[in-house]
């Protein structure tokens, strides 16, 4: 009985720690996404003053992006907006589009929906950089890394700086 109690408490603590760890990861990923504007060039006629980050589907990172944008507004950072989309028919002008895990297997339909627009697709799911994402987050030795598919980015009209290429895992 006592062993069961210990096991249950251990499980609960483990769950809490897991949640805390995941929240930390998405917070760092949101800062990465914000910083991409320094390393990637969108066509001049695509920039409408605001840096728009879209999130397609339910994703923990959305909260982190919104917190960061609110914080950056206070410190006179880049004018950034976060847009939430529940389906790819809703998609509108975005500099960056984070695709939630659930929508990743529909990436081709999503690319079709935004064809011709230089929207940087970012994901956090194994293998996505080979399937249409320009940038895919991975974890290596407990640290955040990102895969970069340079041709995917450049084919849609984005300029990728050499500094970002040097930091990336190239696909």
């Amino acid at each position, binding site marked *: 009985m006592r062993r069961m109690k210990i096991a249950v408490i251990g499980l609960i603590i483990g769950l809490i720690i*897991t949640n805390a760890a995941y929240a930390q990861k998405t917070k760092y990923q949101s800062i990465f996404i914000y910083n991409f504007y320094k390393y990637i060039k969108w066509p001049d006629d695509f920039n409408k003053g605001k840096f728009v980050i879209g999130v397609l589907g339910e994703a923990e990172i959305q909260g982190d992006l919104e917190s960061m944008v609110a914080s950056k507004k206070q*410190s006179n950072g880049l004018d950034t907006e976060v847009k939430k989309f529940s389906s790819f028919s809703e998609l509108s002008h975005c500099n960056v589009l984070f695709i939630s895990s659930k929508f990743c297997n529909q990436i081709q339909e999503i690319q079709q929906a935004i064809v011709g627009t230089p929207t940087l697709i970012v994901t956090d799911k194994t293998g996505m950089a080979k399937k249409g994402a320009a940038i895919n987050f991975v974890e290596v030795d407990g640290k955040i890394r990102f895969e970069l598919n340079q041709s995917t980015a450049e084919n849609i009209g984005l300029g990728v700086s050499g500094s970002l290429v040097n930091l990336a895992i190239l696909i």
Partner: protein
Amino acid sequence: MKVSMISAALLLANSFAHSQQTEEELFDLSLEELMNIEIVSASKKAESLFDAPVSSYIISKEEILNSGATSVPDALKPMILGGVSFSL
């Protein structure tokens, strides 16, 4: 067992405290700096919790009868310095 409960509580407190105190500095980090930060590895922490050393004692039936103990804490008292408390 008590030690592992305390260490678990400390781990939790530490992970929450860490995420709050560096929030402002985080937003100003460069990509290189972000890539050097170690994300808490949830699986590792969970394993260390379950692997935490637990003291085990074997008390024979005769020892229990001889001690006159009528409960588990009473039976363990002679084994553990500082007494036994069940806080679960």
